[in-house]
């Protein structure tokens, strides 16, 4: 879109990118909001609502000479379309002339609003959209003020139709713009919504079972230009003008999705400010304006009843509540100089927390082990070398780009990347999926390559000869760790890096490696000096003193059980978990909503989040807790502000050099301008006032950098007998998401395992089975399906009541506990 053309809007000339949509251009360059309902800049225009009618013409040119034909007064002559045209279906061309304020246009808008309102109910006072509703705004701006239609002819329809558990439909309010159905079809690829009937009877219905079955349903409520679709979560919680939007970040995924927390005081929560809803915040380079339902509805853990409010100290075999001073004193007394120390950082700790944890651990013992939980993936250093180039944006990927997804069910692990990869595929990018089993992305893949679990490395090595890779102008590799041990994943990351380096796809935008980290700030943890190899070492040889923060290893992972052998364990936690149960001191930490900090996304974008919610009990931020303990040990200074900690960190970590809080908070105007406070397109809180973040460059981007070679052994592992493959599921019972409200608990569902029909000789689908691994029996629902390769059983992580395996594990037995209901 670099070529510029001149168009005239209401007589003024504007230089605009050729081929852009007229509505977007008029809004962005001329600040002329042509009213729209059905048009949305993220979707194909359909011209259904007829609200954007304008007068359109082109400057006349002589056919032979190409000269502009001028009239008597020397003005260029314009050839007008005989009738009004829809601006949303028009792309700009050179010499286009647009009039948006003539009598004909104004009358057309008047009439369209009048038609739309013939059957729209007047329940704005109770509508969740009231106050940020495009229909309200455009009625005020363009409506006729009176109607010639009879009130008695108004159509009455159902007002309370649950489309699914999360979304309610009010049929009366719907203006049939088809934004929701188009979003599901075009962007997500789950065509679960559809129009039913025709004319006055036209209705939105859901065509899936269970209803509205998608991970992105919440986005339809954002783009709905009226209050027809509302979320069950926010229903009647507050009016939009009463909410205060605070910029924040998703705490669940590696994508670093930008969100706004809409907050308000709440009586039932004890008079503190709480999160009423989570809205996407526009960041065109990260999540555009989409977020997954987990991000949107998974905020209830921040004020769950189970939140810890006071420190706890072990007395005998019990943990008793204590004051902060006492708890810190107990810790100080137990720390002997130069004991072996380990620190385990969860994926939700901010960079500042990690930095202070590192300082604390190294203050006790310079050789402290700094480790990351979950220890399923490695290669943070590889990402720092050959990660995607600065300026990488899925939005720019189209024809000529190849996106390879290796060993990841990306829809479950990084839904925003799934969505953006899928849309890039629609634009012409080639998607290659390498996996041992079929995933959702295979539907959109140019080629699906199957390997056996344990043979991913050779599959990646073979890619070098693949036509989609050799012909690729740009190449992005997205690497997961499904069905791998930590060591195997290290090999895979090397193989991926090797492929990129050998084909020259490093060090520039839209090229490089992405890792589907299990959590929001795993990349930050690698950057600050933590590693997953240290976790593995620590599990083999447990140190005497252990700091665990922001995770629940003992409750989630079977491999972590040995950690309880440490002599003294300090746990920072939001909740009482199996990990806090073995701790000697438990310190209540704050959730992401109560504090500020920075996360580094999988794309190496450092982004800020801000305090939104009132503090629960006596909880403190993790970094302050670590700093207080360190201060108690050696009296070294404690920073007063999070910004100070970050400044210290940026001074020490080379990659973060030059980054400051103000730099991370810079916001530039984005095209299309969905996030304006005039609620132009969407009517929701997309506005980004918290900063776009800064992507720090990979080392391969430095001038004259020669990326090192990455060696792989290419060793295949073969599995004998039935093997359990732990897989990630978006809705799980992980450390934070477990404490969601009822709405999400229903979505998590009960534990299940997927068994290939060939392996399920005497197991019927739907029966309850006990899967025994390493002497532990896991009870789950059996799903018999080809989704699981022969010889393997897919076992979602963090669903079962006991901690499950995080690496492939041999299954001892599978026994049927109960036959399927009704069999």
């Amino acid at each position, binding site marked *: 879109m670099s070529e510029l053309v001149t168009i005239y809007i209401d007589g003024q000339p504007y230089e605009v990118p050729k081929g852009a949509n007229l509505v977007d251009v008029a809004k962005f360059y001329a600040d002329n909001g042509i009213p729209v309902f059905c048009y949305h800049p993220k979707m194909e225009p359909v011209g259904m609502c007829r609200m954007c009618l304008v007068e359109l013409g082109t400057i006349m040119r002589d056919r032979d000479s190409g000269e502009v034909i001028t009239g008597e007064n020397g003005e260029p002559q314009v050839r007008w379309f005989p009738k009004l045209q829809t601006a949303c279906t028009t792309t700009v061309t050179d010499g286009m002339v647009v009039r948006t304020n003539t009598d004909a246009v104004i009358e057309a808008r008047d009439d369209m609003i009048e038609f739309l309102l013939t059957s729209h109910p007047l329940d704005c006072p109770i509508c969740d959209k009231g106050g940020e509703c495009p229909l309200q705004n455009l009625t005020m701006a363009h409506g006729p003020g009176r109607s010639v239609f009879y009130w008695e002819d108004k159509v009455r329809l159902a007002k309370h139709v649950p489309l699914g558990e999360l979304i309610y439909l009010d049929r009366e309010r719907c203006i049939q713009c088809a934004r929701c159905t188009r979003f599901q079809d075009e962007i997500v690829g789950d065509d679960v919504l559809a129009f039913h009937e025709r004319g006055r009877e036209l209705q939105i219905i859901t065509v899936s079972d269970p209803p509205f079955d998608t991970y992105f349903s919440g986005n339809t409520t954002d783009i709905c230009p009226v209050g027809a679709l509302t979320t069950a979560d926010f229903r009647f919680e*507050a009016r939009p003008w009463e909410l205060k939007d605070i910029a924040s970040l998703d705490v669940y995924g590696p994508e670093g999705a930008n969100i706004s927390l809409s907050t308000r005081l709440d009586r039932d929560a004890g008079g503190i400010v709480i999160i009423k809803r989570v809205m996407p915040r526009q960041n065109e380079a990260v999540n555009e304006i989409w977020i997954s339902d987990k991000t949107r509805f998974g905020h209830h853990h921040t004020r769950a009843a189970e939140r810890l409010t006071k420190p706890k100290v072990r007395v005998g075999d019990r943990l008793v509540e204590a004051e902060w001073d006492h708890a810190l004193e107990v810790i100080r007394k137990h720390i002997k100089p130069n004991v072996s120390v380990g620190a385990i950082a969860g994926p939700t700790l901010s960079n500042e927390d990690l930095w202070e944890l590192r300082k604390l651990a190294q203050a006790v013992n310079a050789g402290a082990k700094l480790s990351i939980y979950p220890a399923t993936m490695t290669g943070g250093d590889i990402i720092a070398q050959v990660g995607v180039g600065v300026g990488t944006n899925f939005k720019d990927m189209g024809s000529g780009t190849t996106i390879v997804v290796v060993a990841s069910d990306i829809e479950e692990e990084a839904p925003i990347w799934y969505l953006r990869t899928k849309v890039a595929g629609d634009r012409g990018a080639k998607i290659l999926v390498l996996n041992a089993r079929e995933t959702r992305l295979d539907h959109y893949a140019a080629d699906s390559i199957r390997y056996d679990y344990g043979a991913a490395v050779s599959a990646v090595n073979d890619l070098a000869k693949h036509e989609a890779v050799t012909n690729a102008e740009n190449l992005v590799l997205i690497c997961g760790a499904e069905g791998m041990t930590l060591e195997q994943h290290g090999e895979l990351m090397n193989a991926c890096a090797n492929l990129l380096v050998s084909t020259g796809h490093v060090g520039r935008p839209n090229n490089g490696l992405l890792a589907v980290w299990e959590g929001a700030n795993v990349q930050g943890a690698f950057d600050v000096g933590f590693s997953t190899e240290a976790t593995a070492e620590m599990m083999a040889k447990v140190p005497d003193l252990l700091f665990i923060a922001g995770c629940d290893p003992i409750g989630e992972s079977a491999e972590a059980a040995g950690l309880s052998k440490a002599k003294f364990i300090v746990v920072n936690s939001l909740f009482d978990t199996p990990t806090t149960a073995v701790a000697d001191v438990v310190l209540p930490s704050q959730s992401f909503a109560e504090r500020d900090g920075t996360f580094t996304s999988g794309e190496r974008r450092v982004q800020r989040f801000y305090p939104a919610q009132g503090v629960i009990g006596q909880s403190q931020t993790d970094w302050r807790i670590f700093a207080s303990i360190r201060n108690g040990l050696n009296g070294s200074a404690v920073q007063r502000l999070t910004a100070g900690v970050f400044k210290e960190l940026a001074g020490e970590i080379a990659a973060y050099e030059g980054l400051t809080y103000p730099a991370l908070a810079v916001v530039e105007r984005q095209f299309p301008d969905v996030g304006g406070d005039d609620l132009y397109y969407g009517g929701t809180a997309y506005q980004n006032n918290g900063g776009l973040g800064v992507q720090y460059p990979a080392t391969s981007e430095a001038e004259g950098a020669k990326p090192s070679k990455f060696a792989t052994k290419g060793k295949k592992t073969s599995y004998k007998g039935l093997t359990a493959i732990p897989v990630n599921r978006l809705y799980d019972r992980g450390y934070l998401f477990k404490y969601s409200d009822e709405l999400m608990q229903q979505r998590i569902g009960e534990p299940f395992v997927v068994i290939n029909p060939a392996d399920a000789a005497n197991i019927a689908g739907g029966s309850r089975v006990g899967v025994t691994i390493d002497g532990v029996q896991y009870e789950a629902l059996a799903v018999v399906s080809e989704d699981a390769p022969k010889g393997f059983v897919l076992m979602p992580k963090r669903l079962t009541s006991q901690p499950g395996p995080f690496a492939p594990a041999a299954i001892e037995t599978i026994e049927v506990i109960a036959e399927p209901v009704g069999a």
Partner: protein
Amino acid sequence: MFSGFWMTIKHAFMDRPTISYPEERRPVHERFKGRHALKRYDNGLEKCIGCSLCAAACPADAIWVEAAENTDDERYSPGERYAKTYEINMLRCIFCGYCEDACPTEAIVLEHEYQLSFTNRRDAIYTKDMLIDNPPEGREGTPQTVEPGAFDRSIPDMENPK
């Protein structure tokens, strides 16, 4: 001097303007704006639908509303939404009546009660229980159990302009 005495004598026999408040009270004008009341429909349901428009209109930020959802088993007001919390801070209120104007269901009305005194700030916050009218004679209060679908509209129906 005599004219002066005359004035005194005349006034001594005139009607006294002072009344012995609080035993006696002066009548107020029909349009007098005193303490608010939340009204009910004749069937006992609350008129208030918890829309918060009064709070938005309030220039003194004296009103606090939190809404919740009605069900047919537990119905407070017609339609889907009702006010779970409704509070007015009488120390803040300036009795301007904007809330009355903003109300789409005529639920909040400034009545003639003007005797508002408190001994601490907390007492100045009038809760929903204190503001709401008693149910009409012979009608039950809220919540009520009603026929499914009988009250699905929040706002009373409009008519064509005459």
